[in-house]
């Protein structure tokens, strides 16, 4: 063990939330005071199908340690079918990331409805825990952008 | 011939030899074999509820693992063994902490994670042999006998884990009774506890409970009771004066299949 006190690892986590279900679920988690670590920052998108793999790679490039995407449950998409496309896209993208050796678990998809404040909070707590256990993202980040 | 790993348990080796012998003879008549696993150790008779207990679960894990290595399902006959082994198996499947610690103790070549299917002899009859097939093989139907099935508590509960039958309204023994040609008598106390565990020290209490069971069964017209549990058999027989006769279900099975005499001779 080093003598210096080990500084606690505070991961950077980007959460893409669809406007209709998951963002509302996050709001419900808030109004129910169901906490989760401040490491999670939410970006509102109209639908999970708006999430371009580019956004996720860009987040990693800029130093994110984990990226999670939340959308309406399959079958409940506000736009009927958006999350079905998102599901395929993310499945393939995650598989590719796994293929090139990015640790499993840095990416996640979770379906959270507007009524699932509890699920939102638990999911975020779990995800942060997972990312903390994986440690810093060294495989994908762009070192230039670190301050 | 279909082979199953078989876990007899302590009581079937001693006081409940009949339960065991009739089962083996019946199995043969039905076309499957119970292959006793080697060096089995007593399951302990009670499922250790403490979530921190490991050592007391190991004998079950050993038996389960041996069946796994033989690629066989593990059959039990005694309700208590069945209860303990099935619950330990569920722990090994679903409780990571117990699985890890048990495997650490066991030092197996390949860790055990609940792969074995645990079947009660009755489940073999129902799900593998089929009660319809059993009915066909009966040579000596017990026609006209009115039999009350006594389940007790260990076979059925907790329903979610044992997945044996509807814990509040079971029917496997009734179906069994029909298959051997007799008439089942359904009575509400069939899944109530007989107090077997406390009969050693609280005789009056268990007597009371046995009386309720007997009276209810008798009231609905039962002429005899059958059970799968040596403890229940003992307790029902000993706590009630002049109660209904109580038999192991395997004894009636052997009788119906016409193999009872063989066993008696052996």
């Amino acid at each position, binding site marked *: 063990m080093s003598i210096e006190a080990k500084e606690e690892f505070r991961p950077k986590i980007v959460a893409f939330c669809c406007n209709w279900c998951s963002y509302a679920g996050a709001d419900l988690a808030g109004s129910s005071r169901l906490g989760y670590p401040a490491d999670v920052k939410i970006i509102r998108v109209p639908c999970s199908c708006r999430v371009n*793999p*580019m956004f996720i790679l860009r987040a990693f490039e800029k130093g994110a340690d984990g990226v999670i995407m939340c959308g309406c449950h399959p079958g409940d998409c506000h736009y009927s079918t958006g999350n079905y496309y998102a599901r395929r896209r993310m499945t393939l993208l995650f598989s590719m990331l796994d293929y090139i*050796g990015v640790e499993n678990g840095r990416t996640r998809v979770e379906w959270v409805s507007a009524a699932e404040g509890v699920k939102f909070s638990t999911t975020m707590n779990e995800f942060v825990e997972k990312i903390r256990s994986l440690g810093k993202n060294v495989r994908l980040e762009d070192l230039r952008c670190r301050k | 011939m279909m082979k199953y790993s078989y876990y007899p348990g302590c009581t079937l080796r001693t006081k409940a030899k009949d339960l065991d012998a009739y089962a083996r003879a019946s199995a043969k008549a039905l076309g499957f074999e119970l292959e006793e696993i080697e060096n089995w150790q007593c399951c302990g008779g009670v499922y250790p509820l403490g979530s921190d207990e490991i050592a007391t679960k190991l004998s079950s894990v050993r038996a389960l693992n041996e069946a796994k290595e033989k690629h066989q399902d593990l059959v039990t006959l005694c309700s208590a063994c069945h209860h303990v082994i099935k619950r330990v198996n569920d722990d090994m499947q679903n409780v990571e902490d117990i699985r890890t610690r048990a495997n650490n103790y066991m030092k197996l070549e390949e860790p055990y994670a609940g792969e074995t299917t645990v079947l009660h002899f009755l489940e073999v009859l129902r799900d593998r042999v089929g009660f319809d097939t059993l009915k066909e093989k009966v040579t000596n139907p017990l026609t006209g006998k009115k039999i009350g099935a006594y389940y007790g508590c260990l076979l059925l509960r907790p329903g979610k884990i044992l997945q044996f039958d509807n814990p509040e309204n079971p029917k496997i023994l009734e179906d069994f009774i029909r298959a051997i040609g007799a008439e089942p008598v359904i009575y509400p106390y069939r899944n109530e506890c007989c107090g077997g565990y406390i009969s050693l020290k609280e005789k009056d209490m268990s007597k009371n409970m046995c009386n309720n069971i007997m009276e209810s069964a008798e009231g609905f017209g039962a002429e005899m009771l059958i059970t799968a549990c040596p403890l229940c058999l003992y307790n029902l027989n000993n706590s009630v004066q002049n109660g209904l006769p109580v038999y192991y279900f395997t004894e009636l099975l052997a009788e119906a299949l016409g193999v009872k005499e063989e066993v008696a001779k052996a």
Partner: protein
Amino acid sequence: MQEVINRAKELLADGTVARVLGWKAGDLPYNPEPAYFESVESLEDFVYNGFCGANLSKYMIEASKLEGKTMVCLKPCDTYSFNQLIKEHRVDRDKAYIVGVGCKGKLDIEKIRKQGVKGIESIKGAEITDEADNLTIQTLYGEKTCSYADAMLERCHVCKGKEHKIYDEIIGESKDTKDADRFTEVARIEAMSPEEKFAFFQKELSKCIRCNACRNVCPACSCRKCVFDSNKFDSAQKANVDSFEEKMFHIIRAFHVAGRCTDCGECSRVCPQGIPLHLFNRKFIKDINEFYGDFQAGEDTEARGPLTDFTFDDVEPGIVGERG
């Protein structure tokens, strides 16, 4: 070859087509290049042999804009790309006169070189009609031979079949040269530890010089303007600055062609650095087949691509972790 030339002359002469899209000889015996022939005379330069690996489908995007029909020579595997381009409205079927040319596997000069053959002067046995199993190579250092099969492009070992999926007429025989499973290498990588996977791709991709040859040759990468050249994603790049950007480029490229890539293998064929780029595309193809059922892009011009389709009970992205 002569049969193709004769037919091309006829079609040009009777005005059926305004030009012929084929190959002409390069400066070396093994580097013929795509070319247009607009007159009967110019067809003297037309060649078609084992080194004509280039997929001419993509050239039809531009040719579709020209006056008159173009006769295009497509090998069986090229027709998949052409179909895919029809599906995406990128080529005009009516502007193409497709001559399905025979193919018995195309050759990879690098494979010949790797066998220690240097100073190549001429190669016999690469002719399309030739039934020879071996190539006879005249070099500065004398005659060498090597088996045709050993010199084939990787993609020919996993040949999709000898059938042309779309054509106006077929000239010459084709041969199914498949003798390997196309997912073997992908599966080998999948089985690696994350560290090994990462090391493997880092090693391969660090060779990338962002010359864009892969992108330029790819029939699926047919965007008028690539996202990596536009400001739509703030992603216009000149060169890679770090290892991440190479990865990003190749992942996104593979993602954009996922469900559209016919696995023609041109990307790997043209990469000057020898990066096995097809491993990205094949990974997606393998996943698509496993997750959503077998799909071959370019099989026809109708089927919905797997990324523009779904079922209610598709696998969840979590499958990636569960699969281990």
